[in-house]
């Protein structure tokens, strides 16, 4: 009798235990499915995010390349600007030199004109000049013309560079 009771109690216990474990297994299976869905969803989101990240990285690389290009373009423009500025400075100096050479040559021509006038006056007897003064004037005109000629040669040489 006792053995029958024990057997019956054990049967009930085992039934209830197995039922409880079955319910627990079902619950865990449900949890697992939910987690699996969450994982799949998260993986999809991660894949999307990684794809976006790659796109952003590509855009960043493009932007960086463009920044480098723009910096280079700006530098080249700056180089050109400085070259142009130096060219303008050079041309201003050449213009100044040309003006001075022209002035010197003009003074030379004027001096030679005056000298010719003095010599004509002396030859025709219109006027008489001190020969020493006339010689000194001729020397001054020669020196002035020589200086102007040398300056002109230097200018021509500079312009031909």
């Amino acid at each position, binding site marked *: 009798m*006792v053995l029958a009771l*024990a057997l019956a109690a054990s049967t009930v*216990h085992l039934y209830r235990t197995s039922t409880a474990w079955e319910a627990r297994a079902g619950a865990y299976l449900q949890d697992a499915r939910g987690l699996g869905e969450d994982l799949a969803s998260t993986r999809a989101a991660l894949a999307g995010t990684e794809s976006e990240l790659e796109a952003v990285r590509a855009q960043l690389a493009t*932007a960086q390349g463009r920044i480098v290009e723009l910096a*280079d373009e700006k530098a080249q423009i700056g180089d050109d600007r400085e070259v142009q500025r*130096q060219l303008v400075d050079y041309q201003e100096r050449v213009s100044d030199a040309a003006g001075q050479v022209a002035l010197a040559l003009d003074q030379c021509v004027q001096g030679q004109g005056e000298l010719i006038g003095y010599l004509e006056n002396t030859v025709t007897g219109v006027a008489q000049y001190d020969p020493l003064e006339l010689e000194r004037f001729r020397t001054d005109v020669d020196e002035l013309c020589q200086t102007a000629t040398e300056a002109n040669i230097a200018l021509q040489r500079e312009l031909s560079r």
Partner: protein
Amino acid sequence: MSTASRDARRRRVRGPSGTTGAVGLLAASLLVGCAPVQGVLDEVPQMPGPRVTDLVPSEAPMTAPTGTGILSPDGFDAVQRMAVRIRNVGCGTLTTGSGFAIDATVLITNRHVVEQSDEVQVSTYDGRDIDVATASTAALADLAIVRTVEDLPSYPVLADADPVRGDAVTVVGYPQGGALTVTSGTVIGETTDPINENLGQVLVTDAPVEPGSSGSAALDEEGRVIGVVYAKNAAGQSFLVPVSTLRRLLDDTVAFTPTQACEP
């Protein structure tokens, strides 16, 4: 869940229906004796314990970042940000070179990049112009210091020692006065200066450089300065003033003297 923990839970958790089973087994134990009963009880299936709800780890595993370098907000790394382009506006001449910052307002370049200058102009990797305060050159090496009015974007550290043959080298500068360029190579060895601009030994590398690269920083794999590019030869080898020379001259307060303005 391990077998041990499952067993522990089975032993720890006893429900009301477990009591019923225990009664039956207790009766059985009276028939067969006490010693084997404990073993039998351990093998009897028990009711499940409290349901586990923390199935997801509270701390998710983190993946280490794969990116390298110290990035600025604009994405440029420190190697690029420390490089500067130098324009030497001379008297009737214009030359360009490279340089790199070693401090917030101090940059290093070659002597021949900044000498005979009417004005030295500096621009950064992103095209910003940086006003120059002073320029000084060294007599014993092809090195110069340029001090700026504004802060430079970034500056590296100097290596503690010169590199040895076979060490990797990265050169960052503005070859031909063009765009910012990073090239790589290895240290080939040491030699005496082929153009007699420096006292002592100089480094030889196979990192490609061009005119305009003069003053570029040569970096090791950790981004530390190991030398300053100052020349190249017909075989395509580049020559560096070693960092030991740079350090020695920087420590010498009278090694650098202000540059002389060019004569028009």
